[in-house]
Structure formats: C-alpha cells, structure tokens
C-alpha cells in the first residue's frame, strides 16, 4: 500500500490547512498585522479557555449546551420517526399531514423563538422545543423520502415470499430505509447545533451561545472565539459519533466496502 493511501496520512492531511491557518493567525496578531482587539492571538484565546475552564464556568456552559442539543435531538428524532413512518407507509396520513408539515418547514428558526418564549417560558422547554423542531425536519424528510422510494422490486420479493404487514416492514422496508434515516439523523444533528445557538443567543443565561453574546457585549473577542472553536470541535465530535452509529446500523454497507465477511 502506498503511504498516501494510509489512514494516518489521510487524517493528517485533514489537519494540515487548519494548522497552517492557525499559524498565520498567531503570526498576524503577534506582529500587529491584525488588531488584537479584533483578532486576539491564539495564546490569549488559550489563556481565556484555561481560565474559563479552571473557574468551572466553561464546563457549565458546555454541559448545558450539550444537554440541550441532546434532549432536542432525541425529542425531534422521536417525533420524526413517528410521523415519518406514519406518513411514509400510509398514504392517507401523508395526504393529511405532509402538506402542513412542508409549510411549517419554511418558517425560519428564529421566527419560532418569540412564540415559544411566550408559550413555554424562557427556560429549558422553549429552547429544547426549538432545537427539536430543527432536528425534526431533516430526519422526517429523509425518512419519508426513504420509505416512499424503497425499491418496489425488492418489496415484490417480499410479497412473493409471503411477507405481509409487520414482517414485510421489518425484513424489507426498515433495512431499505435505514440509509436515508441515518443520513437524515446526521443532518438533523447539525441542525440541532444551529438551533441551539439561535436559542441561546435569543435568551439564555448559560450555554456556549450565551457565552458568545456575553463576549460580544463585553467586548472580549477571545471569548467569542473560544466558543466558536468549541462549537466546531463538539459539532464535529457529535457528528463522528453519528457516523459511527450509522456504520453500525448499516453494517452490510460497511462490510461490503471493506470486503469483510459476515461471521455466520
């Protein structure tokens, strides 16, 4: 195998550009090319990060944000599963509910905030509901499309071999739909991260989004950048978890690519 084909090389290559950019950044701010009150040096950001970490403040912000994303994701996923399956398998429900859902999908995330605060208060419920809505749509749409576009030829195989109802769903529809569901969950999660920022910027006293607005109002760009970097890192980490989960769910695709055999 060539060195350029190795996994380590591929991973290292992904780090190359970020590291170069960080180096340029540090150089620009230290030498004064960039105003430090706009672009603070990396070292200062690191200092801010360790200070916030040491005081326990950062952990608290991070924790509450992760909690909101997770809770919103689970709630949005659950509703999307129910409605996606219902509208996917039963045309009656699809004609009944899908047009309304498609219309609601066009409401921008921020537009929900005033209503949710009015209805659900300023605490967690309104924020988690907002995130759940963000998660809901991509999962729902992918699942619905997945179910509708399942290869009819494979379903005929099921019919011909006497599969009906639940057995047909379990052995044929579900595995055939799983790739689109996993894709939907991944975009749902990234929507969850977008909506958590929306929720926290609009009104929160904790969380990475709050930390960011706090940095803005108090004129501390290092804090804004610390939270930005944390969003990037944790967004990526949770996405990796999702990809891993997807590869477990879609084991047959993974095995096919790597050429491994299924242990019988």
């Amino acid at each position, binding site marked *: 195998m060539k060195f350029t084909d190795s996994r380590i090389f591929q991973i290292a290559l992904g780090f190359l550009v970020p590291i170069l950019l960080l180096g340029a950044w540090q150089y620009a701010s230290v030498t004064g090319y960039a105003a430090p009150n706009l672009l603070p040096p990396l070292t200062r950001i690191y200092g801010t990060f360790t200070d916030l970490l040491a005081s326990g403040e950062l952990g608290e912000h991070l924790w509450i944000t992760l909690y909101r994303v997770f809770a919103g994701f689970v709630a949005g996923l659950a509703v999307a599963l129910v409605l996606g399956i219902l509208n996917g398998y039963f045309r009656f429900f699809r004609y009944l509910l899908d047009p309304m859902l498609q219309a609601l999908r066009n409401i921008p995330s921020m537009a929900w905030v005033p209503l949710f605060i009015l209805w659900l208060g300023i605490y967690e419920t309104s924020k988690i509901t907002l995130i759940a809505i963000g998660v809901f749509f991509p999962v729902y749409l992918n699942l619905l499309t997945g179910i509708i576009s399942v290869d009819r030829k*494979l379903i*005929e195989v099921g019919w011909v*071999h006497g599969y009906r109802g639940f057995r047909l769903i379990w052995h044929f529809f579900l*595995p055939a739909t799983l790739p689109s569901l996993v894709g939907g969950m991944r975009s749902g999660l990234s929507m969850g991260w977008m909506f958590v920022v929306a929720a926290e910027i609009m009104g929160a006293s904790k969380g990475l989004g709050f930390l960011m607005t706090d940095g803005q109002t108090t004129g501390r760009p290092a804090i804004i950048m610390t939270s930005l970097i944390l969003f990037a890192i944790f967004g990526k980490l949770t996405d990796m978890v999702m990809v891993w989960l997807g590869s477990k769910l879609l084991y047959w695709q993974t095995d*096919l690519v790597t050429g491994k055999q299924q242990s*019988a």
Partner: protein
Amino acid sequence: MEQTTLGSHLQIKKTAKRYGDKQVLQEVELEGKPGEFIAIVGRSGCGKSTLLRLVAGLEKASEGGIHIDGEEIRFIHPDTRVLFQDARLLPWKSVLENVRVGVKDGDIRKAEKALEQVGLSSRASEWPGVLSGGQRQRVALARALAGNPKLLLLDEPLGALDALTRIEMQQLIEQLWTEQRFTALLVTHDVAEAVQLADRVILIEQGKIAFDVKITLSRPREHNSDFAYFEKLILDRILIKEKAKSPSGNIGKNDNYTI
C-alpha cells in the same frame, strides 16, 4: 425438498389486461397441468411478462382470472414463487439469509439445503454484492425453491447472463424441476431456451396466444436436427407476420426486433 411436492394446476381463463386504453392481453386461455413446464415466447412488448405478473398475483386481471388448483387467486398464492430477471437479492442479508427469506418456517437448515442444491454452500456467509451475476441468479433460484413451490414462474431469468452461465443455469433449472415436479411457467425471448426446457411452447402475439406447440423431444435434450426442427418451427411462426408486414411499408415500426 421432498420428492412428493406436486405441481399446481394452473388455469388462465379468458383473461384480459388493460392499462388505461392500452390492451396488453386479450382472451388468454391457457391450462398448465400439474408438473408441466410451459415456456412463453414472444417479441418485446407482446404482453408475455404481463401474463406472468398476472399469474404471480402481482397484477390484477381486467377480465377473467387466474385459477390455481381450481381456486381463483386474489393476491399472491402461497405456493407460487417467482424468479425475476434481476436476482433481487437483499443487500442487507447474507447469501444464506437471502435464501432463508424463501423458507416458510424460517428453518435455517432448509435454507442451507436449498443453497447446497444450487452449489453455493461455500458462499453462504458472503454478501450478495460480491457474487457474479450467475451466482446471484442461483441464490435467487435457491430462495425461490426453498419454499417448496408448486408453481414456479420464471421471468426471463437468464436474460442478463452470459451464454455459458446460461447453459449451466438451464441445466440446473431442468434438473431441479425434474426432481421436484413443480409446474413451471417460463417467459423468455430465447426460442432455443424455450425448446430446451419446456414441454410446451406458447407464442404470444399482440396480447393473444398465437401458437401452442408441444415439444416432444426426450430429456435431456440434445441440439440435434429434431431440436432444430422445433426451433425453426417456432421462429418461422414468429417471423411470418414480419415478412407479411415489410412490403407494405411498415419496416420502420419493426426495428426493435429482438428474437
């Protein structure tokens, strides 16, 4: 598979199929005795595949109906299996699990046995994606036979295979049919294949049965002059219309001539 499996008695009674204004089949009347091997030939678009889908229960007849063992079918008959042109294996199940789909009580040993019959036991734990086209079709055949069908419908099952694999598959199908005595209905555009396998060859032309010939050759069939006689008989019959049409200026319409 038990030797005692008996084929279905198939009756197609004055059956017609329309899609909107388009008449695909009309007044099709056909009887298949238990254990008989019938081949249906015809040009592309003559309605032969539609007839097979009607018998399978995957489509509903516009008029008339399909009777299996004296009873009109409403949906797919539990003792009928279909071998499609594309193997249609499930990519999320291993080869053995794909065969198991066809086993009525889900007994894995029956699936193993069926896979053994098509000579693919050694590939049991692999994914269908790594098999060749011929191997996939053999797995599909094992899956169809694992449920001990009384009626096996074959929808151009060898159309996508290369010539050598096709001969092997024909031998395998003939051997398993001889052993298990199910009724078989084969749709094909290959007249030689029809003569090779079938007791009777039926020609469908413009949605109607145009020709019905018994192949009286003994099995296993050799490609000798008798074989050639039947092949020519059927081919000539298919081509009659062609010759009659051509001088009248219809040539352009017939350019998708595939037999």
